[in-house]
């Protein structure tokens, strides 16, 4: 039983990438196993947890619910496309300052989901953030510091005018302050 492989080409975090995959391969496995973008995680098998959230053409997508072939020719942003350790994205910086992560397993997906939320609602209330994070599960933090991180990021993004739609979302933020 050999299945014909399909070539899937995407722009991931601003870089052109391409690999041959089985048509049934999930986007998350394509990103992790073929492109080596292991920052995006898998937490469930029923598309509930959101650990696998990435941006596909600007929309937040659970990458375990999409086939790699469906993402052909799309622009994808994963956590690796936010900031770097030396220059964190405002969302990452805020998660760091507000202790929005413990084990860090949910974090990449949560930050992507939160960026999606801020694109729709740049200045959300605490309640709107809690509602807006419906698609993600964190088992460690009890969410409170995630909520404050998102609030802080919202303020920071508004102040600095970071464009949340650009491919590489590098913002201000320094590693140590």
């Amino acid at each position, binding site marked *: *039983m*050999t299945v014909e492989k399909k070539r899937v080409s995407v722009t991931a975090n601003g870089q052109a990438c391409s690999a041959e995959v*089985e048509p*049934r*391969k999930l986007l998350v496995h394509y990103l*992790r*196993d073929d492109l080596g*973008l*292991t*920052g995006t*995680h*898998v*937490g*469930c*098998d*029923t598309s*509930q*947890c959101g*650990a696998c959230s990435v941006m596909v053409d600007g929309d937040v997508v659970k990458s375990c619910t999409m086939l790699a072939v469906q993402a052909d020719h799309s622009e994808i942003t*994963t*956590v*690796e496309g936010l*900031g*770097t*350790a030396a220059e*964190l994205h405002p969302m*990452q910086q805020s*998660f*760091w*300052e507000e*202790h929005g*992560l*413990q*084990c*860090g*397993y*949910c*974090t*990449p997906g949560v930050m992507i989901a939160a960026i999606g939320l801020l694109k729709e609602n740049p200045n959300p209330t*605490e*309640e709107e*953030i*809690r*509602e807006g*994070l*419906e698609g*993600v*599960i*964190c*088992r*460690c*933090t*009890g*969410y*409170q*510091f*995630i*909520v404050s991180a998102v609030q802080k990021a919202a303020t920071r993004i508004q102040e600095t005018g970071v464009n949340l739609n650009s491919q590489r979302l590098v913002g201000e933020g320094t*590693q*140590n302050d």
Partner: protein
Amino acid sequence: MTKMVGSSVKRKEDARLLTGNGNFADDITLPGMLHASVVRSSSAHAKIKSIKVEEALNHPGVVAVYTGKDLEGKIGPIPTSWYVPGCNLKEPPQYPLAIDHVRYVGDGVALVIAEDRYTVKDAAELIEVEYEDLPAVVNQKEAMEEGAPLLHEDIENNIALNWKAGEIPEGIMENAEVVVKESFYVQRVFPSPLETRAAIGQYNPGSGELTLWCSSQNPHIHRMVLSEVLGISEAKFQVIAPDMGGGFGGKIGVYPDEALIGYAARDLERPVKWIEERSEHYVAANAGRDEYIDVELAGKKDGTLEAIRVKNTANLGAYLSTMGAGVSTIDFGMMVTGSYDIPYAESETFGVYTNTTPTDAYRGAGKPESTYQIERIIDLFAREIKMDPVELRRKNFIKKEAFPYQNAHGLVYDSGDYEKPLNKALEAINYEELRREQEKKRKEGKLIGIGFSTYVEMCGFGPSEVVGAVGFQGGTWENSTVRVHPSGKVTVFCGTSPHGQGHDTTFSQVVADKLGIPIEDIEFVFSDTKSVSMGWGTYGSRSTAVGGAAVSFASDRVVEKAKKIAAHELEVSENDIEFENGKFQVKGVPGKERTFQDIAHSANMAWNLPEGMEPSLEAQYFFKPENFVFPFGTHVAVVEIDKDTGEIDLQRYVSVDDVGTVINPLTAEGQVHGGIAQGVGQALWEGAVYNKNGQLVSGTLMDYTLPKARFFPHIESDFTETPSPVNPLGAKGVGEVGTTASIACAMNAVVDALSVYGITDLEMPLTPEKIWKTVQEKEGNQ
């Protein structure tokens, strides 16, 4: 230099986790790596008639298939690590793959190995297992009954253990003015770390060395147990816990799957990776709780508590897990008097085998259950004698002056001041006003409840003599090595194994203060049995109290030696040297000094050391605590119940915890929040459900409710600090307090709201449907 201990330092581990540079098990790829899948029993109880593997073996890309029979005699059963004495404990063998008898849905029956992760799943589907179903029993009370199906032929009535502690003198219960009784059920729940379990084995056929990366909270325990199971020298066996997406007790256990992966890697001489799926996790990874608890609390009408009798009937699942025997006995039973000075206590536990996935420690392990029964029953006692529940608690609190306090079962609580967090919490919620408001709203027909939990918890495992005496197969002391490099930068090793708690940061804070160096100069190594000396891992909120203490002592030893070198170089006596802010300074002679970095260089070069001194600057300390630590506190929940929908609106949640000295307020608060979310989760939403046939009906995240952000209000948390005398940091434990306190707290609030109907108990989780039905019934609408 500002002191690091006590300040909210941002975490050192975050930069990699925030940028996608973590190294979780599934991120590890090795050359020639194969993928594994475990075929699991779909029947809760059956004889295996046959297993057909040919089709799977012939599937392109499949490398091997193993069944239980193939492994017989090659790999041992997985032993428990807690032989609780004096309870007639019966441990049936748990083979890594069932040989001819499966005992729960999820029991492993075959291991398939293939070239990639998709192929191995395809091939696993092709394995045909023929079962001859046997009657199954999933409820522990039913399993104990005469005539119930037997899981293990020679274990009568499926009773794994019957444990007792304490005795109430005759007459006390019988003659008491008031005896309040209630039966509680603390339901089965799933620890649910967001990352499931994983194992990757790699064998070097030349050297005979085996490396196992696995999701373990205690890699040294894994090495100790699995070296026996696999028949490999501990010296040739390295266990590494990579970054882990949480554990919560679910990754303490040494599991069959991990043994299988080590075995297959060695047998095939190729790396093998196994990543558990979520729905597989829920049938195959240890669950938590599942205990029926019957309580009788006796006392006087004036509220003086005299005696408590508790019986716990615990579901151990189909086999005895790593800590399985200890949770519902020692962990639970010794703490049944809680924070109250109750002179007599009697605890009894039945541990029972059933056709369900084994249970093991889950955040708090026995203490949440223990807290649950005492905090729930004390509320009912207060109601019975018409006393305010806070007043009754306060009246029976162990007094501040009584510490160290020996409880009725002989445990010695290290330190405490229970009024302090209580008062702070009452102030935060404005208690009297809140009660008045409740009264007013009740008159308007509203259902408002206020719940308390004034808990105490035993953690920081612990004194090795004591854990040895209660049958734990481990030492529970901890080690740390502080290695100072020529530059003065430092690598520290410690035998605890963090997986989200942030010990890289908090322990670095301790070292930074001790050595007077910047926190950036310190790196930690945990979770690798090859580089870290024997240690015992992270569970039971022991890491800071025991591991952090070892770090502190090892740092002291470094300073001690460095001081001798400084004195030698400065040609003064050691007594004339003062060490502060990273400088060895001759007292009263400004400028006559050596920095920590100077001495690090001198020690490592060894050009001019005091006579007879060994070169280098490195120290190790093995810390064996003399006692457990006992954090405590007060949690308060306020709820309003919607009569029409049964929905519970958790309006406020206030926590004031005393975890001894707080090393990092920010991360400590994070631990409390996470703990509360899991405890409230158990009370209100989470529940693992089996049907009569032993099929798990809550086996995916669609059916098992993990709380979301919108489920919670803004938690108002605070601390008081009563240092522990047990370790030099004064720290207790913070990882489990939130859970231990909050299950009872949330329940008490809801039961208080429903007390207008005379309700004394409801079974958790308190789903809207359950509440709605109860309210409708009581309102006479049904």
